[in-house]
């Protein structure tokens, strides 16, 4: 417990261990409280897989298979990208409620531009840049105009949703050949019933996750992001000479850009743009981040945990569908899991002492 009592405990495990640090066995016996949320995530994931395996496996086919995993990734690639972007913001002690609306706006922009006959690469780049622009607006409002993150992003939510509604209120199909080619490209493995595939969205999403991991854990920028989320609202980061102001804007730019990429992936997935897509998707992304073990007060968490959180989210949906329950049960279940993890987080931060996490942001 020595690591958590110091302010540096809000950082991921420091690379060089001093000789007095506990051995692996000791750490297993008295687990670091920092890993508790992630352990909860993995336990939930395993529990869901076991339930699925026991209930839905047939003689011919196991529930847990590469097919399940590839389907989970294909169905949730956009959510993974959203959640990765959200992880940056949440680690820095902020929140971005606009991402669902940005997904809708990007989808409609892409659909409209490809109908107008723009070349596919340009359309894709413009799509991502729309997301970047939305994120930049939030970042500037938060950093330079002292607007609370959830208000600034709520305003951009309605701005993006409003702009999407102005572009069109009908679902626009995307039948651009270049676009369809990317959307339907995939690598197929295996034969018959157990065959599974990897498509472009999976590679993009996993690529984003890998880049995010490297940035968060192996760069100065990543350290600054963690530092911004510390209980002192990032003052220490500034005193250490790291560029706090620039980083606080950049986390929202990253989140917006991720929302732009996710918008493209969602457009690949549905091959259309619609102004009411992604209502509540920001909450799914936040849920995935929280389930993945990142503390909503900032400073603690792992982007790979977010990946696990997205899998938990996807599995809840799959189990729900296999049980033949109506789709709104998923919403209730996600709300329930979110509640459980939020409460778990509070219990953990209360244990660490009152100063560990501010009640208000």
């Amino acid at each position, binding site marked *: 417990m020595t690591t958590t009592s110091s302010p540096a405990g809000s950082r991921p495990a420091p690379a060089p261990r001093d000789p007095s640090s506990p051995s692996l066995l000791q750490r297993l016996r008295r687990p670091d409280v920092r890993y508790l949320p992630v352990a909860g995530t993995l336990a939930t994931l395993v529990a869901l897989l076991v339930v699925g395996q026991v209930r839905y496996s047939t003689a011919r086919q196991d529930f847990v298979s590469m097919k399940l995993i590839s389907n989970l990734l294909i169905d949730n690639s956009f959510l993974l990208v959203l959640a990765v972007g959200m992880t940056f913001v949440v680690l820095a002690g902020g929140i971005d409620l606009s991402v669902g609306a940005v997904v809708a706006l990007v989808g409609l922009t892409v659909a409209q531009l490809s109908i107008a006959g723009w070349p596919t690469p340009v359309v894709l780049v413009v799509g991502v840049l729309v997301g970047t622009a939305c994120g930049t607006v939030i970042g500037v409002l938060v950093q330079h105009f002292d607007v609370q993150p959830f208000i600034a992003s709520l305003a951009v939510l309605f701005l993006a949703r*409003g702009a999407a509604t102005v572009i069109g209120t009908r679902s626009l199909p995307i039948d651009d050949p270049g676009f369809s080619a990317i959307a339907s490209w995939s690598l197929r493995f295996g034969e018959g019933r157990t065959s599974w595939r990897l498509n472009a969205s999976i590679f993009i999403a996993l690529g984003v996750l890998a880049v995010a991991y490297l940035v968060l854990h192996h760069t100065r920028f990543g350290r600054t992001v963690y530092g911004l989320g510390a209980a002192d609202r990032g003052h220490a980061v500034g005193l250490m000479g790291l560029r706090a102001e620039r980083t606080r804007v950049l986390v929202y730019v990253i989140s917006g850009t991720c929302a732009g990429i996710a918008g493209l992936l969602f457009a690949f997935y549905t091959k259309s743009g619609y102004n009411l897509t992604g209502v509540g998707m920001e909450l799914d992304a936040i849920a995935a981040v929280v389930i993945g073990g990142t503390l909503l007060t900032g400073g603690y968490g792992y982007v790979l945990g977010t990946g696990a959180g997205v899998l938990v989210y996807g599995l809840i949906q799959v189990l729900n569908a296999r049980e033949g329950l109506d789709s709104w049960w998923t919403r209730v279940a996600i709300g329930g899991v979110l509640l459980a993890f939020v409460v778990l987080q509070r219990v953990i931060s209360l244990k660490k002492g009152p100063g560990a996490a501010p009640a208000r942001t």
Partner: protein
Amino acid sequence: MSAVQTSVRRATGHALFWPTTALVVLLVACSVASPGFLDVSVRDGALVGQPVDLLRNSVTPLLLALGMCLVIATGGIDLSVGAVMAISLAVSLTYLDGAADASDPATVVTAVVLGLVLGLAVGAFNGMLVTLLGVQPFIATMILMVAGRGIAMLITEGQITTVTSPPFKALGAGSLLGLPQAVVIGAVVFVVVALVVRRTALGMLLESIGVNRESARLSGVRARSTTWTVYVLAGVLAALAGIVYGAPTMAADANNIGLFFELNAIVVVVLGGTKLDGGRFYLSGLVVGALLLTTIERAVIIFQLPSTTTNLFKAAVLIAICIAASPRARSWVQRRRSTRPEPAPSSAPAKDPSAKELTA
């Protein structure tokens, strides 16, 4: 300093100056664009006309904003109000649907009470998360924003429940003493809440919690129970808003009732001059804010703009107000003010433009 200048400064400095001015300008613009906009006539013993419509449509945002404003005053936020509207309407209408005689006044009263009790339960749940567990308010209320619509769908079993019950419909569409019944309900609730908050110490306690929870607690304010009460009140008011909003159509559409209404409520609160950081709040501003919001929605129709632009418009207003209220914007204005009057003392007429500067 002339007396005129001081009074101009005092008037423009008042929290309600800008919203009221905007409302008047918008109403005048509407009546220019559409002559007869402000006409009110009497038909079947009830007032009819655009202004009456505006009043009636303002009731829902006003009720939501009333709860939201008190929550914001304590430094919190309630994002679940839209979902609460859907839940309460779903409960009331489902009860009416199952009742033997949906037109029986006693049944209707029970249905309304059921809806309100559910709002109370939701508010108590939010308040518990915020006060007992110390979860940040927007996270705590967001859980129900996600799950709430799912719960409403469970209650209506995924259907859009429709019922025929004249007494229930009258809550939203009927009229009382010549005024729409909804307006009477909104006015009574507003006055009662305003009296309770402002004629007792409650309002001051809320502000003290919003300014600094810890110092409020140390000076003997029961911060925890007071905050909890406010979330409960916000839940009940949102439930009432849902019933009043849904009563005219008598259809519980769990997916769409109250969708994005939390934005409306927040916009009304900021339009009314209350800052989102907590602390000071202005209840009278809510009336102006709600009317202004409804008038903006109506103006979009009157000026024949595409109705899809309303949300864009509201978001732009919210961002503009947030920027205007930020410390940086204020320091810009102060710098301009402090540089402007310097040449002023040399000549008397220069005072006039500086007075205008205040209103610009």
